[in-house]
């Protein structure tokens, strides 16, 4: 025994912070701009649009006596576009209204834009078995990886970007009460849409969740109501089987049933495989904008394979690699995704993200307005 230490006392304040900065450059090849008047006026259909995003993401949490907490997470984004301008189009020169409309429609795809998003800002009070929280917060009740029909308060899930790689998701504005007693946990949430971003179709939501871990099943029952909409209910579970398998699923009811079943398998060398099957009803709440209302129930498949740190390959120990495919099983369209991440010391990393949609122009993923989206970027984390 080489030293004598006195046990440290519990601090009255606990302050944690994080900061990340990302510079992401995305090249959309063979862009087909989703402009109401422009698609047929492009001089050269093979436009490459460069979108450079600089993201600054500070976060902090302050706890006082393990009883009070205050947390905030925000992101500032500066987007700069290159590669598309009014000169790429052949508008009828004698119709100034069309030219003005084209300029207005191109505005989101040109120049520089800056925006500030509050991802989370909330205050919390912990009293005995109760936790009370007020503010904007990201809540995740779903168990699916690429899809989550029962995650009624979760941020919108994008199956081609399930991990929200640029951390742009925002929470819901809510008052939340949690009661935890032994293996039982109850949550009651009222969420308002008053401060929701313009253009979102969020409504005021009241939701309740009961969660219990029983015989290895992490199970939740969710019920709630959207103001002016229908009531909904859901059931979620996850279960680990042996040392390598994890199964998860969700069943949700909102006018009709939506089902998700999935599994994850991890090899002894650390390669993970995830597979999911998802079948949502074709109602406005679940429908993707590219799906016709008359298309009927859609079925989706999702496959992922990835490994963090390729230690077994000489010279590749700092690399993470993953591939995934998300497929609409009805119209056979799909998007293939490749992610490669390279660590550079303790604070920096660089990455490559590739999305390749495939399918007819009228199909779910074939309607994506580019042939390949290539993102490269550098990330700094503190």
């Amino acid at each position, binding site marked *: *025994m*080489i030293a*004598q*230490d*006195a*046990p*440290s*006392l*519990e601090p009255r304040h606990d302050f*944690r912070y*994080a900061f990340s900065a990302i510079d992401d450059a995305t090249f959309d090849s063979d862009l087909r701009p989703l402009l109401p008047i422009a698609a047929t006026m492009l001089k050269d259909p093979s436009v490459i649009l460069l979108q450079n995003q600089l993201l600054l993401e500070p*976060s902090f*949490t302050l706890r006082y006596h*393990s009883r009070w907490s205050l*947390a905030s997470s925000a992101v500032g984004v500066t987007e700069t576009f290159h590669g598309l301008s009014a000169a790429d189009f052949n508008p009828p020169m004698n119709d100034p209204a069309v030219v003005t409309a084209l300029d207005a429609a191109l505005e989101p795809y040109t120049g520089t834009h800056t925006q500030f998003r509050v991802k989370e800002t909330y205050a919390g009070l*912990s009293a005995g078995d109760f*936790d009370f929280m007020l503010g904007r*917060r*990201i*809540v*995740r009740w*779903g*168990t*699916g*990886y690429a899809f989550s029909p029962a*995650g009624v308060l*979760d941020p919108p*899930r994008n199956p081609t970007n*399930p*991990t*929200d*790689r640029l951390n742009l998701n925002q929470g819901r504005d809510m008052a939340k009460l*949690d009661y*935890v007693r*032994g293996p039982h*946990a109850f*949550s009651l949430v009222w969420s308002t849409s008053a401060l929701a971003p313009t253009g979102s179709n969020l409504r005021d939501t009241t939701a309740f*969740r009961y*969660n219990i*871990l029983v015989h*290895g099943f*992490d199970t*939740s029952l969710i019920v709630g109501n959207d103001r002016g909409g229908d009531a909904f209910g859901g059931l979620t579970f*996850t279960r*680990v089987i042996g*040392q*390598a398998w*994890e199964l998860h699923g969700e069943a949700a009811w909102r006018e009709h049933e939506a089902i998700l079943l999935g599994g*994850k398998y*991890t090899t*002894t060398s*650390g390669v993970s495989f995830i597979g999911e099957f998802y079948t949502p009803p074709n109602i406005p709440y679940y429908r993707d904008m590219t799906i016709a209302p008359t298309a009927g129930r859609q079925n989706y498949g999702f496959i992922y394979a990835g490994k963090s*740190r390729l*230690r077994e390959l000489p010279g590749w120990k700092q690399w993470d690699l993953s591939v995934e495919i998300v497929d609409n099983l009805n119209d056979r369209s799909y998007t293939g995704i490749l992610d490669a991440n390279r*660590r550079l*010391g*303790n*604070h920096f*990393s660089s990455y490559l993200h590739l999305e390749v949609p495939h399918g007819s122009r009228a199909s779910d993923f074939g309607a994506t307005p580019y042939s390949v989206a290539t993102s490269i970027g550098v990330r700094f*984390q503190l």
Partner: protein
Amino acid sequence: MSNINCVLRTFLLVLLIGLLLTCVLVCRAATPDAEALLKHSDSYRNGWPSYVLRVKITHFESGKPDEDKLYEVSQKGTEKTYVEFLSPREKGQHLLMLGDDMWVYLPDTSRPIRITPLERLNGDASNGDVARTNFAIDYSAVYLRSEKLGNQNCYVLDLTAKRKGSTYQRVLYWLRVEDARPVRAEFYLTSGKHIKSASFDEYVSVGGTAQLRRWTLYDEIRHNSRSVLEYSGIAPRELPDKLFYQGRTDRF
């Protein structure tokens, strides 16, 4: 004369029985209670029923430091461990162990992920190397032999996993004879493959309780790789049950 022979024979018989009895008792006394030793050895990594500590894991490749990570571990009893990731790249992640079940929460992933104790946390350290430190709960112990390791007399225990959440299937465990302090360990998979070894390098007195301060994990498959785990800030702490609730995915 016959009386003297009779007394002598009786005396020799009693002496023989006494000698045999002594041998049996001495042999029994020389075989240590493996379960009690294992339980005592756990106290060097779990000094209090409820405590917190910080673990710095430094990974070395070919003798050069590769990367280091910092974690804060909160442990309550033998069944509940909560690990908060404090390194820049991992901030916001945390790991929860409840009995045989483990979850990792990644801020950029949509949900908590169920994981196994053997999955790697950093370098050669598995989740279970940090989160599952009560061997007496996870393994059955059998006394194997006594041997000298360096200048220390050690008991060698053969540990076999007795619950599904155990990190390894088998552990060979060297404990110092005088105080059951862990000195060395070898870890084996179900297949029998020897995947890691450990040396328990340094202890410190915390409030009068001897606690492990530094140990090293050696990769037995890739022999040029090792990870050093250094503990600091060890302190008893009252921890609420709700810290260990699997549904709380909303910690920072």
